[in-house]
Each structure stands twice: as structure tokens, then as C-alpha cells.
């Protein structure tokens, strides 16, 4: 059995993730979605009942109960969220209008070697105007991206979860 040890060396030698690509930091994403606006940090933590209700409404797992949210002067909300990518988390920002509809989405950090098409403004624009009443289903009202199905699905699910979060815990 000792002869097998060398085989594991290449695996053990691989370091943990080091290739994060950041396109926007929080401030940059805020300015991209709400140019010139003043935003006030307003993080909140969902209680168990709220998390369960969001999961039941959307059929999407509430992995993190903390909602990293900023309120926008004059109305609107800015939320930073993470979803599971093929290898790492995808960090993105969602801007909501005062009525809870999607104003704009920006991918802040994407770490995969492909599937980068989810950053395409045309693909992200599909979410504009969506509310919690929208199906938000990949290959339904949201087009899939061939070669980036997992990222497309998880971002779609993430937005659906945040819109339900607005309904349940924010407005």
C-alpha cells in the first residue's frame, strides 16, 4: 500500500483557490447600479421562519441567512449576494427599485475559467423589471447560456431568492 502514497502528492500539492477575478468592489457596483446615489448599510439576518418561507416560495435553498443590503436614498435597495459556481462562489449585486422590481444586476466576482458569458449585459438584462411574481426559471423566462448552465441556473435561483427575501423580510 505504501507504493500508493506518491500518487496523492500532486493532489496534496495543489493549493486552495487563488484565481479570483474581481470586476467590481462593493462601492463600484453601487455606483454602476445607482450612480451618484447615497446608500446606507442596512444588513439584516433572516430568522428561521423567514428563511423557511423564502425557501418554500422559491424552492431555492437559503444557504446564508445574512442579507448584505444597503438602502438607497430616495428609494431602492442594493444587495450583495453569493451563489455556488462550478468550483467557487459567484458574487453578484442586485439593485432593486423602490417597488421591489429588479433595476440592474452586476457580476462582482467570477472565478471560473469559462461560463463568463453570465457577465454579458444582454443576459443580465433579462432580469430587469422582474418581481417576485415572475417565474424566474432557466430555460423559461430566463435563457440558458450553453456551456455555463450551472452558473446561469444558480444566478437565476439567487435572484429569485432575493426577490422573495424582499417580499418576506424587507418591504
Amino acid at each position, binding site marked *: *500500500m505504501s*507504493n*500508493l502514497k506518491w*500518487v*496523492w502528492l*500532486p*493532489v496534496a500539492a*495543489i493549493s*486552495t*483557490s487563488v*484565481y479570483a477575478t474581481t470586476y467590481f468592489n462593493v462601492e463600484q457596483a453601487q455606483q454602476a447600479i445607482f450612480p451618484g446615489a447615497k446608500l446606507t448599510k442596512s444588513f439584516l439576518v433572516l430568522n428561521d421562519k423567514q428563511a423557511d418561507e423564502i425557501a418554500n416560495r422559491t424552492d431555492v*435553498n437559503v*444557504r446564508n441567512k445574512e442579507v448584505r443590503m444597503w438602502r438607497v436614498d430616495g428609494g431602492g435597495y442594493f444587495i450583495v449576494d453569493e*451563489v*455556488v459556481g*462550478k*468550483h*467557487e*462562489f459567484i458574487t453578484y449585486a442586485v439593485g432593486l427599485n423602490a417597488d421591489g422590481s429588479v433595476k440592474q444586476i452586476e457580476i462582482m466576482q467570477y*472565478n*471560473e*475559467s*469559462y461560463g463568463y458569458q453570465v457577465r454579458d449585459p444582454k443576459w443580465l438584462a433579462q432580469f430587469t423589471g422582474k418581481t417576485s411574481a415572475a417565474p424566474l426559471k*432557466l*430555460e423559461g423566462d430566463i*435563457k*440558458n*447560456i*450553453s*456551456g*455555463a*448552465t*450551472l452558473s446561469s*441556473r*444558480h444566478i437565476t435561483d439567487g435572484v429569485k431568492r432575493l426577490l422573495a427575501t424582499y417580499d418576506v423580510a424587507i418591504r
Partner: protein
Amino acid sequence: MNDALEKTLDEDVFAHLHASSALGAPLRHMHMRSGWLALLAIAGAGLFCWLAIWVVSGDSLTLDIAILRMVGDYRALPLKSLAPESFADYSYDAGSRFDESRFQGFSFEGIYRILSPYTDPIGLALYVEPTVGPNLRELESKAIVQKNFLDDRLVFAANLTLAQEMRWMKTDLNGSGEPASWDRETDLNLGIGVSYRFAPNWSAGIELEHEREYSSFHLSKKYRTNVATYLGPNIHYGGKDFFVTATFLTQVGGGKDYASDAGSSFVVGGRNYADDFEKDRLRIKAGYYF
């Protein structure tokens, strides 16, 4: 958009099994898979390795170049053992050292995904891999089923494999002087596995493989020869430009040798040591994206 014809890079959280979610990667990406290495650890006797390089040549088509390398000292084995099946046409003394290499053949591997585990309730894919070599003709087919949970971090997969092969035998194994002929065989395997992504980039789990061998293309009791079951852990790292997956399987009890009488059975201690059934198997897949 239909992703059924996505280019498959075959990045997989399993090394022995296949998942139906082999990644859709752009065509410019190359795929290299460093095949499998099995160690005959019984009495520390032998090392059996099979290295293969796969190169993606199309949407879901993989060109596969397999080179077989076998080194072993069978004098320490507690029974009369055969050389690995790929050397079934070799003449050798079963109790002596066997040290040979040979080119196995070329394969074309195609995976067609019918249902995606990301957009459908389950993933379903069909796999076909014809192999042609100087002494080998093989057609391996698989049905691959996959179900994901927990935001696709927990993956279950099942494979049903049917492999029909013909090997050119210069003489029969008993050396009775029968004329050279194509020896026919069918492998029917059921594999199941689970893998959980426990940290960014890293997944680990367990794979189980149950293998049945027949000395014909017909799957009837009359032609069954060997049965063995393997179980072991896997680990996977997926990075930006490469991935590595390794699975170590060890043969568990329940081995059967239907082709031999009790006195010459290849089953010892519940394990089958016939030519296609090693005690331990290690398979490593590695890929690099250009």
C-alpha cells in the same frame, strides 16, 4: 438554448464512474485524462498501470490514446494467477515474473447528454466508446444517471455499463494448440457514487462498482465467468485551468469464479483474482485547459 450538445470536457467528480454533468467547455479547450493505475497490493507483489491520454476532438467526441504498461512479480501471489487481461494472448509461466508493455489501441469516446442535472429533475447521458487496437476490438456503452442536491454540491451518479470485446488469441490459454481466434467477452457493470463539495474547489466521496463478466456476447448464466465488487473513496480538485480526480477502489467480498472448478478457482478470501479483477485499483483523471 439546448445544452445537450455542449462540448464535454469530462471534468468529473468521479474517476471510475462518469457523471452526466461533464462540463460544457468551449471547443478550444483540450482535455487530457491520465488513465488509471491499479496496484496489485496482495503480498506487495505487482504494479499494474494503464496510462491513457484523451484529447477532445469535437463537441462530445474524445480521441483517446491508451498505452498499457504492466509490471508484476507474480511469484509472491498465493495462487496461480494470470497476467492482466490485456496480455491474455501472451505465453508465460504463471509462477514467474511478468514484465511487459504494449500499445492497447485507439478509442473514440462520445457522451450525449439527454437531460441536464442542472435544468431537469435528473441528469441522463449516453456514452459510447469503441476501441480498436492490434489485438482488441471493444465497444463500451453506458447509461449515466445523475441527481444533484444542496445547490449542486452533493452529486449522486449511477452508471450501467455494457462492454463487449474481442481479443485476438494466438493460442488458447491452455496451450493445447488450438488455432488462433477472436476471444469474445462481455462485461456488465453497475456503478454508483456520491461526491460532496466540502470546500471551494474540493469534492470528496465514495464510489462502488459491481462487475460481472461473461465469456460471450450473450448474457446468460451459461457464459458467466467472474463477479467482483469494488468500493473506495474519491477526491476531486477543480481549478481555473486544470482538474485532478482520483479514486481508490479495493475489492470487497462476494467474488465469484463460475468458470473454474473449486480446485483452481481465482477466488481467495472472497476476492476474485482473475485477469480482469485486481485487488486494488487507483484511477486518476487530470485535465488542463488551454
